[in-house]
Each structure stands twice: as C-alpha cells, then as structure tokens.
C-alpha cells in the first residue's frame, strides 16, 4: 500500500519547494480570503511554476462564485478544484462542467450520517475529502485547517466509486494511526505542518512526508 500526501495552504516558495522535493503528491493553494493561508492568483502562479509535472496542483475554494473561479483559473494552472464550503451536488457538477477541471468535494464529518452523505456527490465530483466538522462552539472556525481530528474509524469499511483523501488534524505523529484506522490512501495536512496559523514549518513538512513515505 502506498500512501500519498497533500500539503495544503502553501503560501511561500520555500514551502512549495520543500513539499515537492520531499515527495508530496498534491500541493494545495488557498483562494479563500478569510484564511490566513490565502494567496493572490499572482502569488499562486509564481509558486505553481515550482511544481513539477506529476504533482497535482489543488486550489481550495469556499463557496466560490464563477467570477472568482475565473479570475484564479485565468492565472493559475490548477489541476483539481477543492470545494470546501457548502456547495450542493448541483453546484459541484456545474463547476466541473463550466471550468473543465476535476472537482473534489469536502465532506465535513462529525457523525456516521455525515459520512453517508458523501454518496450523494459521487456522480458530480472526481474526488472526495473527509475533514473534521468544526463544533458550533468553536469561535472563528475556518471551513478547514482548524487542527481538528475526527473519529477516523467512521470511514472504515466504506467504498466509494471515486478516490478520497483524509484531512483534519493530521500531523507527523498521528498520520500512521489515522491511515490504519480510516484506510485512507491519500492524506491531507495544513495546520499540522505549521508553527502558527498560516506559517508553514519546513521541518514539519519534511517530517510529515517522511512519516507518510514510511507507511
């Protein structure tokens, strides 16, 4: 079994370079202005130029309108659009058709029912991602990147017709357990490789990718 990693929220050249040099299979850039990891299309394009063929460039959006997607895609050659808000099945299908790129829908999980809802999206998207649902008590919760794990065993035993990633509170120390419990083949990390929100830690990126390579 080979497990692949996605390093998300990359907002610097050195972090991008560290991610691709250490074997990340996916690199994520955030286009959601409220996030501390958000970058402009111009910055994203310059960082995307550092990504070799074979590494998937993912753009993270939260309930984006068409104008925003157009602005970003005019400048940044994204390979996969990650929809991290409350996009409906129809909206996912619409974005996929309109922009001609593969789409990944993020499913926020607290209970088994949340996991079950993923099935509704499978005809409309190319990928799924399961992330922790932030509790309603959490002040200033972001749509993702809140360093929150969820009960990984909720994902065990399911099968979906599209590939999927595991996200939510992963880091170099817990990723092995998370993979074992959930059965994930692709793992996504953002806050788990940061020294502060939005500050990627190069050593932690290396540690995470090393941990994933050992799985």
């Amino acid at each position, binding site marked *: 079994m080979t497990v692949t990693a996605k390093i998300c929220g990359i*907002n*610097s*050249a*050195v972090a*991008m*370079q560290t991610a691709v040099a250490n074997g990340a299979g996916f690199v994520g850039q955030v286009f959601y202005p409220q996030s501390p990891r958000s*970058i*402009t299309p*111009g*910055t994203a*394009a*310059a*960082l995307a*130029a*550092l990504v070799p063929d074979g590494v998937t460039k993912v753009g993270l959006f939260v309930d984006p309108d068409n104008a925003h997607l157009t602005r970003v895609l005019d400048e940044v050659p994204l390979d996969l659009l990650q929809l991290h808000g409350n996009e409906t099945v129809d909206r996912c299908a619409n974005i996929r058709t309109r922009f001609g790129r593969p789409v990944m829908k993020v499913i926020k999980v607290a209970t088994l029912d949340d996991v079950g809802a993923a099935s509704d999206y499978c005809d409309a998207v190319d990928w799924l991602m399961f992330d922790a649902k932030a509790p309603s008590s959490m002040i200033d919760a972001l749509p993702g990147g809140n360093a929150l794990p969820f009960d990984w065993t909720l994902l065990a035993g399911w099968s979906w017709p599209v590939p999927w990633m595991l996200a939510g509170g992963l880091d170099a120390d817990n990723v092995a357990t998370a993979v074992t419990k959930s059965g994930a083949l692709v793992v996504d990390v953002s806050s788990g490789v940061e020294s502060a929100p939005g500050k990627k830690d190069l050593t932690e990126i290396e540690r995470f990718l090393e941990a994933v390579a050992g799985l």
Partner: protein
Amino acid sequence: MLPENPVFVALDTPELEQAVAWADAVRPRVGGVKLGLEFFNSNGPDGVRRIVDLGLPVFLDLKFHDIPNTVAGAVNAVAGLGAAIVNVHAGGGSAMLSAAATAAAEYGANRPLVVAVTVLTSLDDDDLASVGQAGPAVSQVERLARLSQSCGLDGVVCSPAEIAVLRTACGDRFRLVVPGIRPAWANAGDQKRIMTPREARDLGADVLVIGRPITGSDDPAAAAARIADELDISS
C-alpha cells in the same frame, strides 16, 4: 517617507552634466532618481551631492557587501550624503544586514531606507547552483527577503516576477523596489517579458526603477510625464 510618485529614473551615465540634465528635465513628473556604480565611481560623493542638491530623492544603488563594520561605515557615509534609499547585498548575512539598518537608524527622521539585493537578476538557477546557493531562484529570493526583514531592513530590490510572492511572504509594509519596468510603448521589441509601471504598482511595488525608456527617449521629460499619467499621478 517615499514620494507619491513611485518612479525613480536610473541616471546610468558616467557624465555628471548628463545626469544633471536628465534629472532637471524629468524632475516635475518623477518621484526620484537612481545613481549606480558607474556614476558613483566616475563622480564620487561630490557628484552625488550635486544631484541631491537638485531636491529629488536619490536612490544610491551601490550594493554594499562586506564585513558588518565596513558596511555600517559605508551606510553611515552615504546617509550623510543625503541619499533617500541605499542598498546592501542580503548575502552579507544577518550581522551585516543588522549593522546596515542600525547605521541608518542613527540618522533618525532623516535616515535613508535600507533595502537589500537578494539574487541578481542576471543569475539563473544553474548560476545559483554553481556558486553553491540552493535554487530555484525565487525560493532563494524569498529566503533572503525574510532574512532582511528580520534584520530590520526596510525592503528588498526584486524583479517584477517576484513582487507577488514577496508581498505574500513579507506583508504590506515591506518595501519592494523593482527595476526592469518599462511602459508598453517603450518596448524595444526584445523577447523579455515586460511588466508595465501600472501592473507593477498594482501588484504591490513601492518604487519603480525606470532607465532607458526615459533617458533613452528623444524627450525624457515627455516620457516621464506619460508614465506619470499612466499611473494617474498629477504633476
């Protein structure tokens, strides 16, 4: 501390009178002028004083790179000449950068901005590797910009292609001094990708260094005015 007009005209000439004539001609419609090594080594501190006395902010582009004490002394000397912006090589390391910032700070409200040169634009990734620096160039530029910021420098000199990345890396208050800018109408037909003054400013450049498109034109004053108009800066 910086003029509203971001355009600094590069007076690239060894001739003092030519530099004075250009500066006089463009004065109403530019933010400042830039003097480099060719001018300085031909005309010395007296030449710099002559330009400073014209009343335009002067970016003295001498790119100091030496041990900390020596660079501190050099920054002190050019600050005394009245330069508005001076620069050093970020590759001189943190102690040198801090020494440069400290030397400038002694001039208080009249201190020059100290900005760092990161990677010379003439170096590509292979050139960097050949001098033992890790590429790609944009990563090295970003690394050195962050180092410069942490040492108290006001900003860096960077290429147009690096503006967006450095704005993200270093925030809004870090000064970006950008050479290699030319208006679309001054494109001499070479192959290099150009960035216009307006594009560079909109991306976040604070100072635009423009040379030949102004000093090489038949009417430098008109060229400077046209650029100011494109930037919506009134005279």
